[in-house]
Every structure is written in C-alpha cells, then in structure tokens.
C-alpha cells in the first residue's frame, strides 16, 4: 500500500514535462495567473519530503486532488461513478468465481471426455480474447441483431428491473471472461489433486465417482483459485472498465477513457489509487478466506 502511494506521489514528478502541467492535466483551461496560484498551493517550491508529508495528509482526509477538467474534487467524481462499476464488476467476479470453480472441477474430473475438452477449448478462447472485443461481439449480436437488450446506459428509469435489464449483457460478458480464467486454473488444480494419495484413500473408503470430487477434492483444489481471484481482481476490474466503454455505461471505465482523451492526470491518478485500494482489499479478504479453508495456513506451516 505504501508503495502504491509512493508511486502515485512520484509519477507526476518524475515524468517528463512541467510537473504542474502533469499535475493538473494538459488540456485543462487555465490562465497563467491560475497556474502560478496552483503552483504555490501544491507547494512544488517546497522540499520533496515536505511535499510527501502534505500529500499523505491529504490522502488521509480523503482528498485526492482537484480535476481542473471536470471542475470538481477527484474523490467526489470518482465516488459517484464507482458504485455502479463496483455493482457491475463485483457481481461478475463472484459469479465468475462460482461458475469457474464448478465447471473447472467437472472438466478436470474427466478431462478426456469430449464435453470437457470442448469446454476447456472454449474457455481458453474466451480468456485469450480482449474483454472489449468480447463485449463488442455480444453487443453486435444480442443488442443490434436480435434487439433483446438495450445498447447503452445503466438504466432508463431508476428501477431494479430496468437496471437488471441493462446490466445483464455486460455482466454476462465479464462473468464469462472471469469464469473462463478461473476454469482453466481450477481444471489444472483438480487434475493434479486427483492423483493425490488422499483422493485414492477416499476411493478406498468406498466413495464413488463424483462423490470423491465434491466431498474431498473441491475444497483442496479451489485454494489456488481463491488466490487467483484476488490477484486477478485488478485485471478483471480493468476488463470491466473496457466493457463499460463498449456498452457506454456511465461508470469508472468511461470516466477514465474521457480522462485519457482529455489528459486529465489528477483524475487518472486518483482512479489508479482507488483501484489499487480495491485490489489490496480483495487480497486481504482472500487471505482471510484462505486461512478459513486451509488449516495448514492457520498453523503457520506451509
């Protein structure tokens, strides 16, 4: 976490060009007078350590800086957009983990069958496709061709039904993407655990067929997937940003996209900080979950 704050602090100062321009964003409309005033306010004339301390202080108060492009504090802008993205990405990540674990377990249990091979190949193809392209395919087919779903926005009117209707397609795309990545890991994990001694012993106790998978292997084999889901959080979240852009959803993805086009650096940095914070949280949750599922970790062993 400290490292991320440090990166965030260092970035605008190390990058080529005028740090003030870097800090406020190039395309923002400011007069030279304003520029000088900002320079004094940010305190770039002070020593670096002092700057760092004041920067930390700002962060603790939840102040992420000011977007001169959108004329508002970054924290506020991010907050209003983020809840939607979290709803959308969170649903997909949870669904994707569940679907990936179950489907991966089944396909790893009998990896030679035709169905298992087909599922694995499909998962590989999906996980090798950039999420935005997948989103475009879904959008073109289900929304443009079949007209089943709306093509943009989170809702027409703010009712649960409308939100679900609008979110179904993007959530499906992201779930598919996340699930296919988890599936591949889960499948490999099950294939490996299947050969372990305790699986053989489970058979020797009289367990039959899939009973062994569900009673014994599932929990052991899903441990690596938990780690993956946590580490993948940032990646899947980024995927969500791209999908938002394609579906024109008014969340963080579109916000970042606009910020890039407008070279609105404070906003970009703030967004990065928030995403990093989410990833760290996800990893802490994963660690707790891992400890709950694996007694060896609690014992401080392997």
């Amino acid at each position, binding site marked *: 976490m400290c490292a991320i704050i440090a990166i965030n602090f260092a970035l605008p100062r190390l990058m080529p060009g005028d740090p003030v321009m870097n800090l406020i964003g190039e395309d923002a409309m400011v007069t030279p007078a304003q520029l000088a005033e900002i320079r004094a306010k940010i305190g770039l004339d002070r020593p670096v350590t002092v700057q760092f301390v004041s920067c930390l202080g700002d962060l603790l108060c939840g102040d992420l800086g000011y977007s001169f492009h959108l004329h508002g504090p970054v924290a506020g802008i991010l907050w209003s957009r983020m809840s939607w993205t979290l709803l959308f990405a969170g649903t997909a990540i949870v669904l994707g983990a569940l679907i990936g674990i179950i489907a991966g377990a089944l396909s790893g249990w009998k990896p030679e069958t035709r169905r298992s091979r087909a599922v694995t190949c499909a998962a590989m193809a999906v996980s090798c496709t950039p999420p935005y392209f997948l989103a475009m395919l879904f959008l073109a087919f289900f929304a443009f061709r079949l007209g089943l779903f709306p093509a943009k926005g989170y809702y027409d009117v703010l009712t649960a039904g409308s939100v679900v209707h609008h979110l179904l397609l993007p959530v499906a795309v992201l779930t598919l993407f996340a699930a296919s990545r988890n599936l591949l890991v889960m499948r490999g994990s099950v294939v490996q655990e299947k050969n372990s001694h305790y699986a053989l012993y489970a058979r*020797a*106790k*009289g*367990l039959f067929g899939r*009973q062994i998978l569900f009673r014994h292997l599932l929990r052991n084999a899903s441990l690596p997937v938990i780690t993956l889901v946590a580490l993948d959080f940032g990646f899947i979240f980024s995927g969500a940003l791209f999908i938002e852009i394609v579906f024109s959803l008014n969340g963080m993805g579109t916000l970042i996209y606009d910020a890039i086009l407008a070279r609105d650096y404070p906003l970009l940095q703030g967004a990065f900080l928030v995403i990093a914070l989410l990833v760290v949280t996800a990893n802490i949750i994963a660690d707790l979950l891992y400890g709950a599922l694996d007694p060896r970790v609690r014992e401080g062993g392997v």
Partner: protein
Amino acid sequence: MNPVLEIDALSVTFCGKQAVHAVDRVSFSLGGGEILALVGETGCGKSVIAHAVMGLLPGEAQVSGRIVFKGRDLLALSERERSAMRGKDCAIVFQDPSRALNPVHRIGRQIAEPVLIHGAGSREEAHRRAAALLERMGLSPPGNYLPLYPCQSSGGMNQRFLIAASTILDPSLVIADEPTKGLDPGRVREVEDELVRLTGGGRTALLLITHDLAVARRIADRIAVMYAGEIVELAENDAFFDRPSHPYSRGLLQSLPEHGFVPIPGSSPSPVSPPPGCRFQARCRDGKAVCGGQHPDLVSAADGRMVRCWQCR
C-alpha cells in the same frame, strides 16, 4: 473354516511403453483372525497385490486370475459394486498417513466418513462411533483428537487415525500397506499393537505388506516372501525365521542386523523381461543347470510350507 480371502493365479501387467509384469501368478489364502505378512524388496510387486485386491489399480493395469472375497469373485464385479464393499467389508491402510489424510478436513470427519458413505448411521451416530473407536484405541478423551487437522499431529498419531478411519465399520479384511514405514521405533510398536488388536476377535483378517522383516516377525502368523513378482516361499512364522528354505529367504535373513549384514550379491532381475528359469538363479549360491533352464513351481515341502526352488525338494 472358509477363508476370508482367496487369491488364485493373480497376475498384473502394466501396459506402458514396455509391458511390466509386476505380479505373476500369485496364489494364497487368508482366514479370519489371521495375519499374513507379504514381505519382499522394492519393486517385487507386493503393493500391487494390495491395490489389486482393493480394486484401486490405475486404468493401464491388466489383471487376470481370481480374487475371491467371502465367496465372491471381486474381478467379476462392477466398479459400483466394488466401491460399495470398499471401506465396509475390506479396507486398506496406506503408508505415509500425512498424505492419505485430507489436509483440509478434521480428523473426526475423516474417521466418521465411512459410516456416512455406507449409510450405516446418521451424522451424530457416525461421530459417536468415531469417538467410541478412539476411546477403545486408548486415545481418550476423544474430544481432544476429533477436532484436530492432520497437520496438527505427528506421523505416528496420523497412522493410528488412518487405521481408525479404515476400520470403523469392522471390515472382514484389512490390508496394511507398509503401515510402519518412516516411523520412529516407539511409534512402530504402537501401530503394531493396533493391528494385532484388530484381528483379536477372530473375524478380521489382516494382510500386512511390509519390507520390514522385524515387524513381520513380531505380529504375523504366516510369512509370504515375494521375489520379482512371484511368491518364492510361504511358511508359518516360526518355521520361516528358524529354518528359511528358499536361498533368497536365507539371503534376506542373513542381511539383517542380527546376522551381521551379510549381503546377497547382485541385484533383482528386470520386471520387463524376467529370465526364463528360476528368477533368483543368477544370485544363488547353490544354482545348478536345471535352475537356469526351467521355471520352478511353488510346491509343498516338509512342515506344510510352500517353496519355489529346484534345490529344496
């Protein structure tokens, strides 16, 4: 009395790049309450017999012969019928308990599991039986042991838990596959006591598979010595250790510490292409011409033992 287990001309071949003849026409029988020790060196096929009886061999193994368990030929049964018997009528105790126990489940759950699988009782009933079993094994109060995970107790303890999980349903046949491997001497004795206690009622038969002759000597009723996939000698415990017949048996006993570590020269033949005559002939001191040419059969000798040797007739 009817034997619990009767094995007749059992052969197992693994078909890989080269066909490996792991077990070659092995026959023996085992009565209730009896302990038969199958001894021999690494790669002689003793563990393969254990897995064949349990039906746990991998797919590329070809099994022929008959394995008759309480009057039913196991090789003729379907996988579902066999799994209904595993853990209930016949059970196995593996070596290396820390790998055979599932690391993420509690000991209590793992001991109680067979009761649930075979529909022998409710969840409470299963836990009650697991606790009672541990108590009988001298592990009391059982409440101290049931909530443990395998990583929280020692190898010897885990081996006793594994025996408990295998025998909670009182199977008629227990196979112990190297149950003492890697344990410290004191722990070995505890595991031995456990195994002897099992057969005490006279109902359960124990097939003990081990490379440790000392363990076999202490607890087995009869000893079967395997060499290169075959049984070369089958005799009562005392008769075997006092007067081993087969040259390999004699060599094996000579290499024990109490006889001064006298080695057998040479090494075992390859299981891919075993020699045509007696398989021990190349390492045998009293080998004659007939030994290299013709394969000896396992025949009865004096004092009821069986020996596979041209010279011991």
